[in-house]
């Protein structure tokens, strides 16, 4: 009974933890945020975190439900109570929490357009003096001094390995002028080198790109979230339809928690399934799966309904699989002591 009553608490605690984690990773995927972090502007960084937490909220909720499933897998609960409790929380999430996050996101964007990407970026600044910079695969440059206003450098030295044989690689200019709009340095009227300035010193962030699997997952999540917000088929109901179907597919993944007799394997299957649900979204919106289904559907069926239909079908298939497993185990192991024994 205690474990069963813990379900809402697990939901809330995971909501707090995953809001922080997802917002943090999401912020780091934006170069401007790295600059803010590097310059230790904590107030701005916290605002960025808040914006990303709001923006990613639907995804955070899905992750939280995943953790609730894991909790249910690892602890004995009274299923007649815990399952309706989870469904109740899921319903409340789709009907109240997610629309609330959309409204909060709109309010935030109008109040702080800079963090929501709705305003011009901060101007480029000249990078540190005396450090060799690479602007492309062939050109490297260095300047020893800069003016107080950081709009001129002297002297400017460029090593250009792309020049024809016989010419000199080193080119020296007594003065270079910094162009903040594109971060280049020019001598006279000609642009001598690009990438002399920017939002953040490139050397500092060169090793800070997100690992490819995180970056690609964030891209896929962004595509899903953006798909939710732009889904307008049938008015506001279309949006609810898209979110509900996707949510149902995620909830249906819970059957994977009981797929095998080894919980660890179930955990891996659950994580892999969760990843695939997001990875497959692009295919259902405009990819090969979409094109295949579109061929067989009459033109009167709106394109926007195809993706929700896919996810609804996936949810039904998984639910059917879960039902079959349940019945099979009940029949085969009438005297078993539990799911994993």
């Amino acid at each position, binding site marked *: 009974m205690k474990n069963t009553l813990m379900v809402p608490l697990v939901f809330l605690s995971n909501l707090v933890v995953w809001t922080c984690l997802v917002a943090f990773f999401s912020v780091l995927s934006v170069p401007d945020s790295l600059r803010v972090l590097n310059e230790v502007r904590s107030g701005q960084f916290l605002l960025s975190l808040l914006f990303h937490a709001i923006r990613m909220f639907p995804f955070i909720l899905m992750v939280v439900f995943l953790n609730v499933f894991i909790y249910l897998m690892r602890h004995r609960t009274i299923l007649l109570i815990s399952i309706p409790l989870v469904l109740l929380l899921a319903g409340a999430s789709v009907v109240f929490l997610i629309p609330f996050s959309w409204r909060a996101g709109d309010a935030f964007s109008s109040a702080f357009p800079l963090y929501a990407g709705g305003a011009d970026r901060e101007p480029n600044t000249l990078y540190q003096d005396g450090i*060799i910079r690479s602007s492309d695969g062939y050109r490297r440059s260095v300047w020893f001094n800069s003016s107080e206003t950081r709009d001129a450098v002297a002297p400017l030295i460029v090593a250009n390995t792309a020049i024809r044989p016989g010419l000199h690689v080193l080119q020296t200019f007594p003065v270079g002028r910094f162009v903040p709009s594109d971060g280049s340095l020019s001598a006279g009227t000609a642009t001598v080198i690009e990438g002399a300035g920017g939002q953040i010193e490139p050397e500092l962030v060169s090793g800070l790109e997100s690992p490819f699997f995180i970056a690609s997952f964030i891209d896929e999540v962004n595509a899903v979230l953006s798909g939710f917000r732009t889904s307008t088929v049938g008015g506001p109901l279309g949006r609810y339809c898209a979110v509900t179907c996707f949510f149902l597919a995620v909830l249906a993944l819970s059957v994977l928690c009981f797929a095998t007799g080894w919980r660890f394997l179930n955990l891996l299957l659950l994580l892999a399934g969760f990843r695939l649900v997001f990875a497959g979204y692009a295919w259902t919106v405009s990819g090969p799966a979409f094109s295949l289904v579109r061929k067989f559907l009459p033109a009167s069926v709106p394109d926007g309904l195809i993706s929700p239909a896919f996810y609804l079908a996936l949810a039904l298939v998984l639910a059917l699989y879960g039902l079959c497993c349940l019945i099979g185990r009940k029949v085969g192991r009438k005297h078993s002591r539990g799911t994993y024994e």
Partner: protein
Amino acid sequence: MNELKRALPIVLVHLVIGLAASLVYAGFTTVPAELISPFVSSFRFRAAILLFIDWMPALQISGILVGYALAFAKDVPESVERWSGVQLDFLKGAFIVALVCISIYAILSEGVGPAFQGKQQDSLAESGAYAEYLSVARESSEQGDFGAAEFRANAALRIWPKSPEAVSLLESIRYDMASAAGENAAGTAELPNGDAEPVLPESSGLSVLSALDRARQAEAALDFYTAHYYAMLAYKLAPDTDPNKVEALRFSSRVWNRITSGTDRIQAEGAAALFAIKRQGYDAIQSGDYLRAYYILLSLQEQEAALKDSAVDPDVTRFLEIARQGVLKSFFFIDETLNLELFEASRNVFFVIRQDDGRSAAVFVHGLTYTGSGSTDVAYLRGFEYALFERDGSLSYQISVPYAKMFPYGNGKTTRPQLLLRSVDRNRIGKEIEMEVVAGSLPDQDRSVLLLDMPYEDLNLVFLANRGPSAMNLLDLMRFESKAERYGFSRRVYVSEILNRLADPFLILIVSVYALILGWKYRLGTNSVFKAWWILAVPLFPLISRYLIETVRYLSRVMVMLTVRVFPSHPLVLLLVGLSAGFVAISVVFFSQRSD
């Protein structure tokens, strides 16, 4: 320790299968098209080892995860409370496994990895050079320049000695060469080997008295040139207050009189013309014009060789060697640089030198080749360009030279890179390659030799730094970090790289303990049997482990960046405190586990 006996084989199986999979993967992966046959096997092998090193932490973590998840199913008592001693035993065992794996990984990643990466690059560079040599050889052969064609074909054969293509090309070139030469082929007089000792006995470190003794010995042997040479050496060595200085001068005059009065054996042989040339060469040595002396004596030696009846004059051979050594203090021979491009260790090196006197220099090198010369380091810099700026930023001068020869200059403690900028032909006078003054002006005496204002040992670090911090090993990074900004590199980048490298083993350890926790939480049920089809899911474990460790590394890199930015003076201390806290925390979490 029963659980260790069960888990360890699974960790080992992970590593062995990982190694085998790496070998198989590298064996079937397409190698770069330009790679030539002799390098393919070794290239694939090194690629496999590098791949294995890359995956090793994930394999280790996956091994601990699976191994302990299965071992705990068998060896955990029915009931284990929180903070149990049983947990401590488990942690000890896992700790040993993790430490051993991490030690092996550290050796592989810091030692074997960079070495193999360097060899991979060398293989590709040499393959490219091989193709280029063959192409140039064919082109030269078609144009009738058989000498150049033969040279290039031989260069290609040095890279791939049994290349059928290169062997066939070389034979074809030689055949064409012989045909073209025909009846015009003429024998070329070989330079005499010089049975006599070509070099005068080592004269550095001689005292005044010992130089005089050698002069007397030479006089006794009627070798008046050598006697005069040592007498003048004694004269130069002696301070003004030394009475031997006068004696040395007197002795040298006496011997010189013997030379000029025609009593020496050369005059006796009647070769007056040759004698006059020899004297010119000797005079040039005495006046310090070694280059002129070298060509005079070389010409003399060739003339003597052409006279079939004349014996080789040992004086000429000796003084030619003295002149040659004198020449090599300020010049180098053009032919020394032939074929060097093939063996370049670094290319397109660019750095600056912020000098102590407030001036700054910019240096660019197209290619760098190290060659050993006894115990002395010697390197050749291809396409060397140098620009010196005054304190106010104005350009003092900018020079460019096709090749420069570099070696350390100075005593043992403060050696600096000295660059010879002029190269001369070994056999013909007048053929010189000099620097080009691109801008500004510099005195004539500075046109031959350039001394860079930096310690010689920094040079190798600067060349390595041009490949990026990831190409440097930890020791090099630590040596370079404090002086990075002097050479135009960001110190923060190198400090961050050092911290990231140091943090890595700790992170793997922390994640290993976390894997232990997961193994505990998700251990196989006591009464459950491992089903055969679950094996199919095994590849998922290293993949998930890889995701886990890469995520942790990523977070660590972000934290390191912040630490270096906010606490630039003590980032290492803070990092170690943070990692220790992380390790203690994760260990406490493990102790707090209990059986369900």
